């Protein structure tokens, strides 16, 4: 790990101010992904701003009946929150299907959104990777791509975003609240938060350097059946091959988002209009522009079958 200086932030304003003035500074919260990447020297910040002491760890009801989730709420606490369990079951289910108990105790809401891909080529500094070393090439294209993206990919990168939580937030239409170095605040719809790789896969979100997530907002509860189904190589503690998060209403209408298939949670609103016709019709629309590799073409069948199973569960 490269050497770095370290400070405990005294306020959000101080944290974003320091970050804005130092292009090599990073915030650290749970640190479970950042420190892992720092050990491999894939992340090499020269200054760490520890934001754990800033509070921002509450879950409050908003005026419109939704929830405001502080950026530093741990994944365990978010999954266990009574309001989340009752009204946003999809979010609880997605959270507890991710990582291990130890990691969920550390991982934060904001950090979960900012975690980086688990593409094995990204993690191997000996291999070309446009995300780790822009311009070096993509080893997954033409390599072992069984776990990689099938839609929204580019000639530069076919990595997927690994978060389960983000799939739930996508279907629930959450908003990410941030503050920039100059104090300007903005609200970013979750669907706009993560980027597709295009020709700059090293830029994964729309956040500017030093921009800090303060909270994630959930709109009022949708009702309906909340189901998160994750398909993976092991029964526990593994990333998704594909995952499907749904909120389905008694009339068969609803929302769905898919994980393990793209550089961001994959949600297509026009496909949701087809949900009442069944999984095949909905997936045909959601994945009409898919471009799988020979090794990950199976994911398209797997998504359709998983969605079909989930729709069946929702009827039960």
């Amino acid at each position, binding site marked *: *790990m490269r*050497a*770095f*200086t*370290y400070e*405990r932030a005294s306020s959000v304003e101080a944290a974003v101010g320091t970050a804005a003035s130092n292009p090599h500074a990073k915030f*650290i919260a749970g*640190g*479970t992904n950042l*420190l*892992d990447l720092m*050990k491999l020297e894939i992340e090499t910040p020269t200054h*760490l701003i*520890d934001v*754990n002491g800033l509070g921002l760890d509450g879950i409050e009801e908003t005026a419109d009946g939704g929830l405001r989730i502080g950026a530093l709420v741990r994944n*365990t606490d978010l*999954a*266990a929150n009574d309001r989340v*369990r*009752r009204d946003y*079951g999809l979010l*609880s*289910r997605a959270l*507890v*299907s991710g*990582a*291990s*108990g*130890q*990691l969920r*105790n*550390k991982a934060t809401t904001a950090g979960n959104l900012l975690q980086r891909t688990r593409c094995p080529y990204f993690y191997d500094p000996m291999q070309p990777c446009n995300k780790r070393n822009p311009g070096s090439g993509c080893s997954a294209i033409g390599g072992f791509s069984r776990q990689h993206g099938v839609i929204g990919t580019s000639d530069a990168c076919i990595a997927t975003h690994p978060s389960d939580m983000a799939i739930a937030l996508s279907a629930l239409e959450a908003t990410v609240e941030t503050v920039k170095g100059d104090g300007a605040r903005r609200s970013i719809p979750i669907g706009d938060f993560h980027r597709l790789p295009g020709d700059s896969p090293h830029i994964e979100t729309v956040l500017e350097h030093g921009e800090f997530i303060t909270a994630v907002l959930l709109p009022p509860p949708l009702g309906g059946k909340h189901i998160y189904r994750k398909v993976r190589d*092991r*029964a*526990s*503690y593994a990333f998704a091959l594909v995952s499907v998060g749904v909120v389905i209403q008694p009339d068969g209408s609803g929302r769905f988002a898919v994980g393990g298939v793209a550089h961001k949670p994959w949600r297509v609103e026009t496909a949701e209009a087809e949900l009442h016709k069944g999984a095949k019709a909905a997936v045909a629309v959601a994945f009409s522009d898919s471009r799988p590799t020979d090794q990950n073409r199976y994911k398209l069948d797997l998504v359709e079958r998983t969605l079909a199973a989930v729709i069946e569960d929702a009827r039960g």
Partner: protein
Amino acid sequence: MFHKTAVSFKVNGEVCDLEIDNRTSLLDALREHLHLTGTKKGCDHGQCGACTVIVEGRRINACLTLAVMHGGDEILTIEGLGQPGHLHPMQQAFIDCDAFQCGYCTPGQICSSVAVLEEIKANVPSHVTQDLTEQTAVTAAEIRERMSGNICRCGAYSNIIDAVMEVAGAPL
């Protein structure tokens, strides 16, 4: 440039004042600076759980957190859970149930198990919890799922579950 930071935390009830390289993981601080070698280094990447310790009442991977981030925290390691002559019930149950072979993962398994029972008591849900609106119960399926962050290459899993169930007083 200051690449060292002073930090003070409690380990097993004792105050520890350190001035250490910012890069030092909590795991390395425990093992190399405080010489508490009960906590093991397995993968050093949060995948195996051998380094599991209990910080502020919660189990975490000591390898994926910096020691300097734990100012003021109460840290409990396997040495603090119990010692020969006054073992923690979970330590005794691991012996009684033959819940290990080589023993390398065992301190992490035991710290994790103790915290798992507290998590169930606190009604933290898991991936296998059937109903999110009801109190979570101690079942073999719950223990198996919640312990998935602790790998045992000797494969003592079934006896580990027996040990945890015994401490919980749950029927097998």
